[in-house]
């Protein structure tokens, strides 16, 4: 058993090494494999039985039936092979997810031939596949989800594209690998007590930005200034068009640091940071991340958030 296991492992390693990691895979003769299924063997056994019976009873109709089945079996090789041939599989770029969610693999299957491809199966192994149809000169999409347990890069397993259509006596298959890795962020967990984020956050962070909240000064109207801010009273007194200028005080800004959570267990700490970053982003405040190895300056917006999360994911 162990020997077989070893051989299997070696075989799959060899296969893996052979697999090109291209975003687009063209199925062709050199990467399509074919073997009879168990029903194929069953059919062969039945054909043999029929032929033996036909010989025994000198029954030529029996011979004919047996040979027709044999011919259909042989033709099946072509039929089944044809079902995969010239299909193009394009692996779509994966989206990052949080640990504990499902990371998905999206495929676009392109059939540029004039032939309907029925029941093409995709799956991690040849045996467990889900089937899709790909009409002629058309595309189909396939998505498979994998549970993302750990933060970091998720490496997709080797995938199989198979078909037993039409008669189920032969199975053709090909293996391919996604060239992409999916990024898994830490799982966001709300810390039980607020992180002392403001420790060194607020003291040098009081920069002022022109805004609309606190009155700041009065200036000449310039086209483009919001009408709301025009001093209509002054205008009424014929003092010209003046607009008020306000100032947003961006006091709510946070720099999250590894220091603040370093006393937690590493993964938990990252989860807390992750949660806080998301919270901060949803509040719309400026935030930054200070990790031992890398510092991300203050900023806001989703893009900024993802930048921070990536640092966490790969920490």
């Amino acid at each position, binding site marked *: 058993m162990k020997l077989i296991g070893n051989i299997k492992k070696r075989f799959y390693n060899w296969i893996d090494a052979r697999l090109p990691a291209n975003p687009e895979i063209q199925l062709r003769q050199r990467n399509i494999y074919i073997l009879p299924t168990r*029903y194929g063997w069953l059919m062969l056994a039945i054909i043999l039985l029929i032929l033996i019976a036909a010989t025994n009873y000198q029954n030529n109709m*029996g011979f004919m039936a047996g040979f027709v089945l*044999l011919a*259909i079996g042989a033709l099946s090789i072509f039929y089944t092979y044809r079902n995969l041939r010239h299909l193009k599989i394009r692996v779509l770029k994966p989206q990052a997810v949080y640990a504990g969610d499902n990371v998905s693999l999206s495929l676009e299957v392109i059939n540029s031939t004039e032939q309907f491809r029925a029941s093409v199966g995709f799956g991690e192994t040849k045996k467990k596949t889900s089937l899709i149809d790909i009409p002629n000169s058309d595309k189909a999409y396939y998505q498979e989800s994998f549970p993302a347990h750990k933060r970091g890069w998720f490496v997709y397993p080797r995938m199989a594209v198979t078909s037993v259509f039409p008669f189920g006596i032969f199975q053709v298959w090909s293996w391919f690998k996604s060239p992409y890795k999916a990024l898994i962020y830490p799982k966001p967990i709300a810390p039980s007590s607020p992180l002392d984020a403001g420790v060194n956050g607020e003291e040098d962070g009081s920069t002022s930005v022109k805004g609309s909240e606190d009155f700041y000064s009065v200036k000449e109207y310039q086209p483009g200034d919001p009408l709301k801010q025009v001093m209509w009273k002054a205008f009424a007194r014929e003092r010209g068009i003046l607009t008020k200028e306000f100032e947003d005080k961006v006091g709510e800004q946070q720099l999250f640091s590894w220091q603040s959570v370093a006393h937690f267990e590493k993964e938990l700490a990252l989860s807390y940071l992750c949660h806080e970053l998301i919270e901060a982003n949803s509040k719309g405040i400026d935030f930054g991340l200070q990790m031992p190895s890398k510092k991300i300056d203050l900023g806001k917006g989703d893009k900024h958030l993802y930048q921070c999360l990536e640092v966490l994911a790969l920490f």
Partner: protein
Amino acid sequence: MLIAIQAVVLFPLWFEIPSWITAATIGLLIVKYLTYKFNIKLPSWFLLIFVFSAFIGIFAYFRTISGRDAGVGLICLMYGFKLLESKSYRDATLMLFISFFIMVMAFLFNQSIAMGLYLLLAMLAILSGIVALNSINGIKGLRHLSKLSGVALLQAIPIMLVLFFLFPRLPGPLWAMPDKSQGGTGISDSMSPGDIGSLTTFDDPAFRVKFDSAVPSASEMYWRGMVFSNYDGFTWREGSRSPTRTTNIPSFETRYQYRVQMEPNKSRWLFGLEQLATAPKDTYLFNDFTWRRPKKIINQFNYSAEAVVYDYQGVVLSEFHRSVNLQLPRTGNPKSREWAKTLFAQSRSTEDFIQRILSIINQQQYHYTLTPEVLEEDVVDGFWLGTREGFCEHYAGAFVFMMRAAGVPARVVTGYQGGEYNPYGDFYLIRQSDAHAWTEVWVDNKGWVRVDPTAAIHPSRIEEDLRPRATRRDDWFSDKVVGFDLPQGFLQKLQMRWDAIKSFWDDSLMSYGQDEQHDWLSKLGIHSNQWRYLGYGLVVTLLLSSLLFGLWLLRKSIKRDPVEKYYELLKQKLMKQGVSIPEHYGPQAIIELLDKRYPQLHEKYSIAIKFYIGIRYKKETDDESWFKRFKAQVKTL
């Protein structure tokens, strides 16, 4: 769907298996349908009981569970049962594949063309079922599925034919089969009044004959089967007889050569045109000039033979044979015995005696009818001197009886007489209804002379339906024979054509076997190592055809969408202009690329590309005309 397929597959077998099994399988189908419809789950003990009772039933009925009939019955039951418990893909697939075998079982009973066609249909149904199992939509695309399987079947047939003719065949049964099959219709191994008459209603073919030489006239076509020399007062049976060696028979001269294609008659005798001499392969010639196979003929059987004329000059009938052919029961039919002795005393010779009796049959009120009065005792007396009506076995039996009573060795011969010519297949068809009985009388220096007393009956006293047949007999009274030609209607021609096709089917296809394979290989000049050549032929033709076929099949899939073709062409033209288009760029991206980097090309190419976008991505476009314009655009570039 599965239920329907199973019904289709089992249908031909329903006529062959015992009726209770038929009923059980139909019952199973109905049960399955009901459980499926009302979503009932059958308890497993029910299934168990069923399997158990099926075995018991089969055993009680056949007293065995092996052998053809019992085996078929059992398999049918199990097959029906399998459907009952199938739920998963695995079960269903298994059932469908087993269906193929069930289907072939039907061939054991019937190998006719109709059966072949029907089973082609059944095969189509099974294949469609398999395809349905393997596709997402299940049976919804039934038409598409059956088209797919139909195409597969059509493509498989030429391959089947190659295999059929080239595949090396083995002789005979691989193992002895217990076969207690009932005798088929046909001539039986004894003759009592009414036996042959009952055959006249059977129009089944007995055998077909093709002549390689000149064709004898219909009145000469006496197909000899059996000779009966033992009479117990009611039934004629075969007497003492033994296989003979060719050295023991008189010298002979060949007259006709012919080939016979015999329907399985489930008995051992062969029929041959009189007189019979050298026996066909694996067949014995008996000393009463009949042929006998070592085994029952259960399959179509072909043989060639020749009809001969024996030269009996100087041949003397041995004492033993004389006594065999003079045997009569010690008592019974006293009047006929007396009558015969009296007439013989008046005759000048044996031949004169024969002629006198025939004249009496011809001129007195002797009738030829299928429905004579039934006689229980002294049947010869009752028939010859009483009712004077009967069928050929009455006449032949009575005739031989009187010959023997007068001391002339004589015997009854049964077989077939005549034959219907089929111009489309150039063969003669001999039907069961052509069964006949006639006699042979020993005349010194002439040997065994065939005398057909039935042929002497005056045509006016022959039952009307029987006339056409009777006119074909030995014409002892040829001047008085009236011809009754059936109108050659359209239907009859059709019938003949159909029979010619059937003959081809049976002759060339169903009886193809080791011998035939050997024959045509020998004709090609391959006498030894035939298997090896067959192997070569098989491998070469299969490789070649699969190569061609594979190429053709796969080529079809490469055939591209014309729009795509021109789009590719357009891209190539762009490449030639020095534009490098990344692989993943869509048409819109190409336009943008051209706009940015190759403004001089943009103007020229963008229109065509826009056409392409229009055809491909806009919903409602007049594809035909758009494509034409797109094509023109690309061409002018």
